[in-house]
């Protein structure tokens, strides 16, 4: 007999004479399906905790009864034949969910062979300790958890077949890898998750060595020959859409090549690729800011209709143009109708992206790198048998990160390329190192994966033996060509007249407060003035000496005067437009500022 209190979701709800039977009964009811499957029970010394609330991580385990797993061969066969599903197993009380709290009461066997009488649960598979993303990684148990986590987040950035119907989709932006491959070294989950049907990466032949400093600090060196054979090639699609909208008073947008009279006419040159409807032809090469769909819109405000003159509409140019850095070929032009009967035209451009210096690649072990150099095939090192690697990987990237899985994958990949059978690298059951070594030896390689290599530039044998293998690499969507940006002159913000910010607005590099402090610290006052004023928002304002307000210049009459006091004692003063704006804003607050002028010398 053990009496004690009972808690439901952390609050005391009562007491019970026999806690053991209570916990047991609740558990049995849950297994019978009388209580929800997400309810968990924990029996402590003198209390029973029942939890049904949200936010508990639950995991499924097979129930063991009387030293025997409830999951029998019969079940397994039925699952394989797809007669029953996982949900049926839970319904039948063969598998149940435990949370961290109830796990304390459980004694879980890792494998079926280990089961003793004390065991209460059996793991479905040890590799279930990993999440969805981690389970896709080969040999995850050999890697550090932080590296796995990085690899998981990069898996999501990999370019691949993002959808099987990509050809008929009109996404605003989409990337597509060409010739994606299934990984040679793989886990069970590749198939289960359907990644075999939509792979996101390619098997790269790598050599682990340095290459005249161009793969320093995680950089990688790529083989130009491989790139020309479409290694790491992807397509960038960009969709544009334009609609013939209706306005009140019967006005309408029109798809048409605008006439010269229309406000915002871009010149004949801009419309040269369009047909008579103002729509671009497929397979036309377009550049940034080229017109794709030309459209004219009615004026925003209706003008007063005078009785004498005929109504002359002043239409505006309202074309859709190619965004900056999105040049390419027009891939697809679509004409359709919206819900409200408006004509819609969609255009998709395509641009093939070969790997260039600065593109990001990653193996599935958190080993990401940037392309540091693309080398002519003849300058790449080759092995005794004439194999030229696709990529040169820096050996320093491995020891400090402790990604042993990367090395194992390389060996496994090498083995696979000869055996023709994919290597299983699922966590805790993958093909082990000894077996890989043995197989490599059978194929006539050194068991440690090293090979004699020759320098492509000199033709000489490289003194050290080079570790080579095949590793599955992903191209990540951080592409250098989409990030490249520079500005010499460019647009200004309307309000402050300072340069705009951000790549999409053609902005400048920010000169922030810390950079400013640095210049002050060095006493470089003149340079600071140039940065903050000359290259930003310098203006000349007319100031009235009498009352210190901003004066006006009447260019028609050729006179400068103060609107506040009428004085003609006006002086031009250099200042930042930001300060002038401040004065105006203070005025809006009801604060009058007065600038006192003084001679500089």
């Amino acid at each position: 007999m053990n009496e004690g209190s009972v808690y439901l979701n952390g609050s005391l709800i009562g007491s019970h004479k026999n806690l053991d039977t209570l916990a047991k009964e609740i558990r049995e009811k849950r297994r019978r399906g009388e209580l929800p499957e997400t309810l968990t029970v924990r029996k402590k010394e003198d209390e029973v905790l029942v939890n049904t609330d949200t936010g508990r991580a639950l995991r499924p385990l097979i129930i063991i009864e009387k030293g025997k797993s409830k999951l029998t061969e019969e079940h397994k066969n039925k699952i394989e034949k797809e007669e029953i599903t996982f949900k049926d197993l839970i319904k039948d009380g063969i598998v149940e969910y435990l949370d961290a709290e109830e796990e304390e009461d459980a004694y879980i066997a890792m494998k079926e062979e280990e089961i003793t009488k004390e065991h209460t649960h059996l793991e479905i598979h040890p590799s279930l300790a990993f999440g969805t993303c981690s389970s896709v990684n080969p040999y995850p148990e050999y890697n550090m958890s932080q590296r796995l986590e990085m690899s998981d987040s990069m898996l999501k950035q990999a370019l691949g077949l993002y959808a099987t119907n990509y050809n008929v989709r009109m996404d605003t932006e989409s990337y597509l890898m060409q010739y994606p491959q299934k990984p040679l070294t793989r886990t069970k989950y590749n198939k289960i998750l359907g990644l075999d049907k939509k792979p996101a990466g390619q098997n790269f032949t790598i050599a682990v060595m340095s290459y005249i400093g161009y793969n320093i600090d995680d950089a990688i060196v790529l083989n130009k020959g491989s790139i020309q054979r479409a290694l790491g090639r992807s397509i960038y699609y960009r969709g544009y859409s334009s609609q013939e909208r209706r306005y009140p008073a019967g006005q309408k947008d029109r798809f048409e090549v605008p006439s010269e009279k229309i406000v915002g006419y871009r010149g004949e040159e801009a419309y040269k690729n369009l047909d008579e409807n103002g729509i671009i032809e497929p397979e036309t090469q377009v550049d940034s800011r080229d017109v794709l769909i030309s459209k004219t819109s009615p004026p925003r405000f209706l003008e007063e209709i005078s009785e004498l003159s005929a109504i002359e509409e002043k239409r505006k140019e309202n074309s859709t143009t190619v965004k900056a850095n999105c040049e390419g070929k027009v891939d697809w032009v679509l004409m359709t109708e919206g819900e409200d009967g408006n004509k819609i035209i969609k255009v998709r451009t395509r641009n093939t992206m070969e790997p260039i210096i600065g593109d990001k690649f990653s193996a599935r072990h958190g080993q990401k790198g940037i392309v540091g150099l693309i080398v002519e095939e003849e300058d790449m090192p080759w092995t005794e048998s004439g194999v030229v690697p696709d990529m040169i990987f820096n050996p320093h990237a491995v020891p400090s990160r402790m990604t042993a899985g990367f090395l194992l994958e390389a060996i496994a990949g090498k083995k696979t390329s000869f055996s023709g059978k994919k290597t299983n690298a699922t966590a805790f059951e993958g093909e082990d190192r000894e077996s890989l070594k043995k197989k490599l030896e059978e194929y006539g390689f050194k068991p440690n994966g090293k090979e004699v290599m020759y320098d492509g530039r000199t033709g000489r044998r490289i003194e050290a033996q080079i570790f080579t293998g095949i590793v599955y690499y992903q191209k990540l969507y951080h592409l250098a060509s989409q990030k490249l940006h520079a500005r010499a002159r460019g647009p200004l913000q309307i309000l402050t007249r300072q340069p705009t910010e951000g790549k999409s607005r053609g902005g400048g590099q920010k000169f922030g407060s810390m950079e400013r402090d640095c210049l002050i610290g060095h006493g470089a006052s003149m340079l600071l003035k140039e940065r903050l004023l000359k290259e930003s928002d310098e203006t000349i304002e007319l100031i009235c000496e009498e009352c210190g307000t901003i004066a006006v210049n009447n260019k028609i009459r050729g006179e400068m005067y103060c609107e506040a006091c009428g004085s003609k004692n006006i002086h031009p003063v250099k200042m930042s437009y930001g300060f002038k704006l401040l004065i105006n804003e203070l005025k809006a607050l009801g604060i009058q500022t007065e600038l006192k002028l003084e001679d500089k010398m």
Partner: protein
Amino acid sequence: MTSMKDTWKELEKELPQRKIQTLKENTKGMKAAEKRKFLEEKLEEYRKSKVEPGEPVGLLAAQAVGERATQMVLRTFHIAGLTGELSVPQGMPRLKELLEVRHQPKMETCKIQIKKELNGNKEKVKEIARDMEEVTLEEVADVQEDFNEKRIIINFNEKKMKKQNLKPEEVAAKIKDKLRKKPEKVEDDQAIFKPKASTLKSLRRYTQKAKTARVKGIKGIKRATIVERKQGNKKTYEIHTDGTNLRNILKLPEVNSKETYSNSIREVQGVLGIEAARKVLHLEIQENLKAQNITINDRHIMLISDAMTRKGELNAIGRHGISGEKESVLANASFETQMRHLLTAAQKGETDPLKGVAERMIVGEVIPVGTGSVELRMSNQKQKKK
């Protein structure tokens, strides 16, 4: 060849008297040529270490401390488990405390030096420390409420009373002051009070008052430990306290008031004045950084502590302190609470002379720092001469 005397005279033009003194001490016994060379080198060093005109010292101090302080957030050494010594908050929290001149720092401590004739006597010092510690009634007695009779029964713990060297009469007298009521009964092991409590609630309040009543020690000293210091063969003892009360500690006849130190800047300012506070601030920042293995040129810290105390009162670094009280309207307005500054300036009709860095940058002028601190002017006289 100039004589040595002339050389010294030459030096006196540039070096402060104190430096001359140390140089004279250090060059004793040197040969003339050697001495001259040495002094020349020192003079050159002195010139080099001087701040150049126009150097933005404030900004450099801020950067010097700020750069290292960002690292301090990441790694703070905890000095734990040192017997006897009290642990003061370290690293970033303490530095923040110091620069913001908090009213209630986490750990205020006093390092009390005992007068020379007593500081070797461990027992005596222990006694002084014990008498200093604040003892509440709760600690030496069991306080109970008698709800029926509406009285408070205090059962003295004989052992604890003896340890603190307390007598029931003394304690009862202290409680009497606190409750403003004479005791009903005082015996060796018990004292009974009957306060003017009509309800149980007010009785509870009186009990609470009695429990926390200080029966012994100096107010604010939660703990006092003695620390051994070795000077050659001689062992001396000093007292470190948790909590400070410098004013009352200095009143104790056994205390060497000249060398007793408190780490509470506000308290030092109140008791000893602003100059002492400046020195303590300087020492505390220095100590704090040293404990974190951070080396910053001492002059930066001196400048900061000077800036914080220059108005004769303690000014924190930050919005409510020196950063918020610049002379320029624009500079103040550019640093947090903008509207308030602008509106008050407008009300008073203030004029901004545009002398400082921040305001000149807003307007778009050359800042008065470095190359901007000099101006070219035409000399009328020279032109006339031509």
